[in-house]
């Protein structure tokens, strides 16, 4: 999220692609309603389904799932045609927008209408409304990301914003709504298989930086891997870990996955639940650590070596969490852990002790910085404060240096002293933004509420785009133009990211030799904090000021290109806009693209499937289905179906139906009539579990722990299909066939 929820109140136009905040972010949605109320903002909702959010929209666009790129190119076609783009902004702050312009020229309203199903007059009306009301903000969530072209979708949306000059503006930006408590924090800590915490990657330099900060020997870390190469190899993802067990597609590690540890994850929340079940059955060992019985232990037929460890809830533990807008919030413990449940960290510490690396595991919390080096400064640690200090000490990439436990606690205690629209503190909190939104460069920095805003000084949260990819490409300058000077900066226009080597030249200063001696190689690993200090003194952000790249030479598609979903209802279009070639060794497993799409699935599976959430449940519904009042609101799994479609199959409202996926999986659910879906598609919520392909698995729950509501997992029939870069599953655009049960 480049801006924050309160800032949406500054927007004059709000366009939402594949997000349903009225359902998934009800409290955050208030800011959107206030923007409408107080700012006369135009609310535009682009969604395959008429959602609760759409019910509050001024303009609603019923789009065919998986065609967001053509729709946005259609908007850009009109924007460039009528000169609605921000030329000066593009010239100074965007790299190779001309490539986008060229592609957009092809996407005439008629062509867009054919591909997306959106009438030309609606496209024109929406584009005009969005381009003529500035600042405009663009929101998205899983509806944009969970596609085989999800990564391209997430590039297309910022490009639209860049063309209009909406990035780095109050009331503008790309506001990506995170779906759960602390998901942003989990992402920032890279609880993922492809990077070290703070997006440091897996290179040797990164590992060495972390080894130094954890007070452990690099060789020792390396020896914990089977081979040194494994240390730098991405692991399996949540989307396709099951292939590591089943090996139906080729895997790239010496042995299959034999044991699975699930802690804090609803395993039925990604596609292919039937495959997940098969993989669980085949494991040697399954451990789930959750406050509620995780579905992983329920949907499996495994009868031995399944362990359920009770963990505490957020009320029984303390520490910082990160909100969707990059702000930290300190959370206090309300009660001691109930019964035999243990906190997450206690389980992890016990695990580390048992496996003999406890000392190395916790040493980082006892370290501090002396003369630019991380050294052990004490013999004990205090949870969670010292963990927070460790994070602040190490993570420079996204600027967590300022997140000391003392500051975060002060914000928690004084939260009434901040303004919701600007996040600005008043009284004792003056000069800081609520939750110190990252980047918070130093312990005296304010935090940055709106990313890439060159209109305010760096000390008040200003910055340009990060200069991450060098200073030039194919002879073209990648740094920001002369008119993109950050307010109050001593350096005019663009400049490269700061290193020990270039800092004096870039900032035009002289640094004493004793300081240079303790300075880190570059701003990302400078434990001394001197680079940040001198950067802030010069009014510049340590990470440089570059152009945003509309053209990315390292991606499979240099500019976002439309590619039909793997299972497309428009086989004719798959010929024109084919998907990618199959990909070898994608997160240690082969992934199919074109070999799926080359078949015309729509012949046998003519109905589009899209999935989403309901207001009373979140994720796999582990927690909420255990609440009788929430479960009573939607006690049964269902499929939303248009009466006109149902009629074709002799289905009446409330009838049980079978839904079949191209992979051969099926679920039995109740049909629910609604006009929110058009007759070519159905909608499934994905919160249910406990019934697998018609079979009730509830005997697998520990005694007395069957939730009030169980049901088929919608993801059992979510199709095969994964993003080319991230491997996120394509749950939002699939095909199914239905029949009356």
């Amino acid at each position, binding site marked *: 999220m480049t801006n924050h929820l309160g800032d949406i109140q500054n927007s004059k136009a709000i366009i939402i692609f594949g997000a349903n905040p009225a359902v998934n972010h009800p409290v955050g949605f208030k800011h959107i309603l206030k923007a409408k109320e107080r700012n006369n903002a135009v609310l535009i909702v682009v969604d395959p389904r008429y959602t609760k959010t759409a019910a509050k929209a001024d303009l609603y666009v019923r789009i065919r799932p998986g065609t967001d790129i053509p729709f946005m190119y259609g908007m850009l076609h009109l924007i460039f045609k009528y000169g609605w783009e921000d030329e000066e902004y593009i010239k100074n702050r965007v790299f190779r927008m001309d490539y986008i312009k060229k592609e957009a020229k092809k996407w005439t309203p008629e062509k867009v209408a054919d591909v997306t199903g959106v009438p030309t007059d609606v496209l024109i009306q929406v584009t005009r409304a969005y381009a003529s009301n500035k600042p405009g903000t663009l929101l998205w969530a899983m509806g944009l990301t969970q596609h085989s072209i999800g990564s391209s979708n997430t590039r297309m949306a910022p490009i639209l914003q860049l063309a209009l000059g909406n990035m780095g503006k109050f009331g503008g930006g790309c506001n990506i709504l995170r779906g759960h408590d602390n998901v942003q924090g989990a992402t920032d800590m890279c609880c993922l298989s492809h990077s070290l915490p703070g997006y440091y990657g897996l290179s040797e330099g990164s590992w060495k930086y972390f080894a130094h900060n954890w007070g452990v020997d690099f060789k020792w870390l390396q020896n914990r891997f089977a081979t040194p190469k494994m240390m730098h190899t991405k692991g399996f993802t949540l989307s396709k870990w099951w292939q590591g067990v089943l090996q139906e597609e080729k895997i790239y590690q010496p042995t299959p996955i034999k044991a699975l540890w699930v802690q804090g994850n609803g395993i039925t929340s990604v596609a292919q639940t039937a495959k997940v079940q098969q993989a669980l059955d085949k494991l040697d060992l399954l451990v789930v650590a959750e406050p509620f019985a995780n579905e992983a232990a329920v949907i499996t037929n495994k009868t031995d070596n399944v362990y359920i460890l009770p963990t505490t809830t957020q009320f029984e533990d303390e520490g910082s969490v990160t909100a969707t807008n990059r702000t930290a919030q300190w959370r206090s413990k309300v009660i001691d852990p109930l019964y035999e449940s243990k906190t997450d960290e206690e389980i992890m510490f016990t695990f580390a002790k048992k496996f003999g690396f406890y000392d190395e595991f916790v040493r980082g919390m006892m370290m501090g910085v002396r003369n630019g080096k991380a050294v052990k400064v004490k013999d004990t640690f205090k949870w969670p404060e010292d963990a927070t200090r460790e994070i602040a000490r190490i993570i420079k990439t996204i600027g967590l240096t300022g997140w000391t436990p003392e500051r975060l606690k002060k914000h928690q205690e004084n939260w009434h002293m901040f*303004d919701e629209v600007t996040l600005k503190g008043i009284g004792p909190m003056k000069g800081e933004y609520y939750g110190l939104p990252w980047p918070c460069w130093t312990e005296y920095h304010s935090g940055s509420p709106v990313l890439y805003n060159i209109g305010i000084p760096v000390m008040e949260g200003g910055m340009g785009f990060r200069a991450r990819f060098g200073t030039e490409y194919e002879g073209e300058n990648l740094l920001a133009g002369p008119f993109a000077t950050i307010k109050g900066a001593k350096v005019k226009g663009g400049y490269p990211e700061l290193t020990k080597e270039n800092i004096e030249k870039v900032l035009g200063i002289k640094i004493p030799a004793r300081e240079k001696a303790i300075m880190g190689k570059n701003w990302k690993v400078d434990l001394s904090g001197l680079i940040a200090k001198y950067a802030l003194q010069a009014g510049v952000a340590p990470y440089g000021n570059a152009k945003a790249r509309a053209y990315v030479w390292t991606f499979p598609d240099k500019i976002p290109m439309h590619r039909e979903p793997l299972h497309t209802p428009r086989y004719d279009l798959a010929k024109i806009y084919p998907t990618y070639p199959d990909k070898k060794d994608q997160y240690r497993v082969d992934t199919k693209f074109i070999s799926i799409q080359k078949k015309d699935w729509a012949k046998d599976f003519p109905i589009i499937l899209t999935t989403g959430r309901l207001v009373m449940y979140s994720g796999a519904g582990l927690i909420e289905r255990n609440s009788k009042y929430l479960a009573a609101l939607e006690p049964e799994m269902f499929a939303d179906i248009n009466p006109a479609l149902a009629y074709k199959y002799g289905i009446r409202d409330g009838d049980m139906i079978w839904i079949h996926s191209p992979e051969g999986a099926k679920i039995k659910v109740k049909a629910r009539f609604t006009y929110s879906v058009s007759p070519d598609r159905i909608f499934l919520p994905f919160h249910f579990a406990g019934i697998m392909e018609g079979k009730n698995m509830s005997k697998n729950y520990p005694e007395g722990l069957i939730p009030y509501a169980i049901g088929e997992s919608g993801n059992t029939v979510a199709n095969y299909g994964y993003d080319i870069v991230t491997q996120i599953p394509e749950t939002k655009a699939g095909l199914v066939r239905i029949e009356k049960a």
Partner: protein
Amino acid sequence: MYEYARMKFYCDEDRCIDCHGCEVACSDANELPVGIHRRKVITLNEGIEGKEFSVSIACMHCTDAPCFQVCPVECFYIREDGIVLHDKDKCIGCGYCLYACPFGAPQFPRDGAFGIRGVMDKCTMCAGGPAPTFSIKERELYGQNRIAEGKVPMCAAICSTNALIVGDAAHVAAIKRARDAAKGKGAMTPYGWDQAYK
């Protein structure tokens, strides 16, 4: 000048997003049996483009309450602040009040006349009932008495978009007027977050 507040609910259809937060908060706070809806969000024209809207409805605590008028055993009473309550010890569960009520507020527990929630159950605006304030009997028969604690009723306290507001009619009207006056005037929050949720 008036001596007492006149308590009223107001639900803004432009803000209500059918999240059911008020319903669940009410049921949970007052430990209602599942199926008793002191408050319910009603959505009309669900899924129909441009026509769908939602509103949260409970007992509206009418000034001239029809339930009060028709009750054969006169179990209803109206407090000085306008909150309409009833005495479950007097109520016979006949359902006349349901005939009279324009909002479908009266609820009838399935566990019979002598179950934990008694005969007829309805929104108390979180003001308890005729049993002694904060007594176990009041808690079990009528639910929380947040008004006596100086707190806002649970439903409005939890409302995610502040569509639902409750309080002295003059205050409710003032909030609504302020919202109407703010329309089209741009973002504004001169105070801290305790004011922001207005």
